[in-house]
């Protein structure tokens, strides 16, 4: 729980600083995108620290390419 709180706090500080920096440069859209990506990362990191199930892109790739790689692995004759 403490880890999650620290991650959230750090993300909040970085987000505020990034937003202020971009807004002062007259690029608010960049600030919004940056803070949005940071929020996704922070949720991901907090989810990991709380041992919650978080989406893994490798599972998506495995699912999509399942019909292709299975025959290849069988042809190669390796056990993975």
């Amino acid at each position: 729980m403490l880890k999650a709180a620290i991650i959230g706090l750090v993300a909040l500080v970085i987000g505020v600083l990034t937003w202020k920096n971009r807004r002062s440069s007259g690029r608010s859209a960049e600030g919004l995108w940056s803070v949005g990506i940071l929020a996704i990362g922070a949720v991901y990191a907090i989810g990991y620290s709380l041992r919650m199930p978080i989406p893994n892109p490798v599972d998506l790739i495995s699912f999509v390419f399942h019909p292709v790689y299975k025959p290849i692995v069988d042809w190669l004759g390796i056990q993975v």
Partner: protein
Amino acid sequence: MTQNQQMMNGSITTGQMGKLHIMFTLGSAALILPTMVTVIAKQDSWITMIMAVGLNFMFLYAPLELAKRFPGQSLVSYTQQILGRAAGMVYTVLYLFFFLVLTAAVFRNMGDFVGTSVLPETPRWFIHIAFMLIVMYGVALGIEVMGRSSEILFVWVFLVFGAVFALLTNKMQVSNLLPVLADGWIPTIKGLYPITGFPLAEYVYVMMLFSCVRSEDLGKLKRAMWMSSVVIGISGLSIALLLLLVLGADLTLRSPFAVYDMAKEIQIGEVLERVEITVAMIWISTVFTKAMICFYVLCLTTAQLLRFSTYRPLILPLAFIIVPLSLVIYRNTAHTNLFAFAIWPVFGCVLGLLMPMLLLAAAVFRKQGTPSGKGMKDTQQPEQERGGTSSEANSEQRVTAPEQRNGSERKESMSTVQVEKS
């Protein structure tokens, strides 16, 4: 300096590009790849490594041709030019996903190695965060610093590999290579499968980095990349041969980090021993370069897709995604082997070979770009005439606009001074 290079914070020479490419390929591949190939090709894995040199050229062909057609432009820019804005953005998002997974996988490989062999008591998250901090610093400094640091590290990498080679000559047994082609050519050809994904399909990163090569050096780019492919081929062959000669096929395929275990064999009397940590340091330096390039390319692709004026505001947010992702990307060693061995080559071949080839075919068919690879203005002029489909073109127009305004103001003030004088 071209428009892209302004965003990338500098430009590099073809020599630096070649060295970055060598470091990128040797990073992680040198330590993990021999085991993967030896599992399939056994004692003939060195023949597989020779055959892989040809594949190097095949995977670099489409990116080099696209770089020639669209000099000074990156993947994000020319895909939108070739395919149109919407399709180009979808195409780029796929690559964004690829670079995201690749960066996380490189961090995970490094974390696994350091956590298993060098710092077994240290928590993995700490290793990943510490490594990420250094990578972030390197990426923030820009491509020129990365190019120069790769030039320094390049010399040390080859010095240490040379020293390891020399110190292990007394442990080599030629009988380990026998029998040659005992099961025919098929296992040797099958051994190419993991190589196609790791590292060959990862070469697609060059489609982002070629745009930062100095425009006056672009003519030499192809030669530099071919040369680096030859160096990579010779290095891969040397490592595979050395592993087989020293450890033999059985030990090599059982070791997750065979080169590191091979360095443990170095023992000259009681004077020189435990030098494997030197190999670990060198390996970490190559993986550092690879991680830096992957993360840089990820930041740059995101920045160009979202039309940022610079990629720097994205470094911290993307680091927040990469670190936890690298910790969860593989569940265990079996899952790592399944993904790296079986799935990644298929996924990599689609994005690293098939899609660039299709993009090149579309560019040729639609007569986009300049086949002769003439100056940048030739390719960007039609784009601006069509209303500007390139993300960098738009973002750089915004960046250069104040300077142009200042320039025109200066001209105006100069002309008023001349009028006053007259």
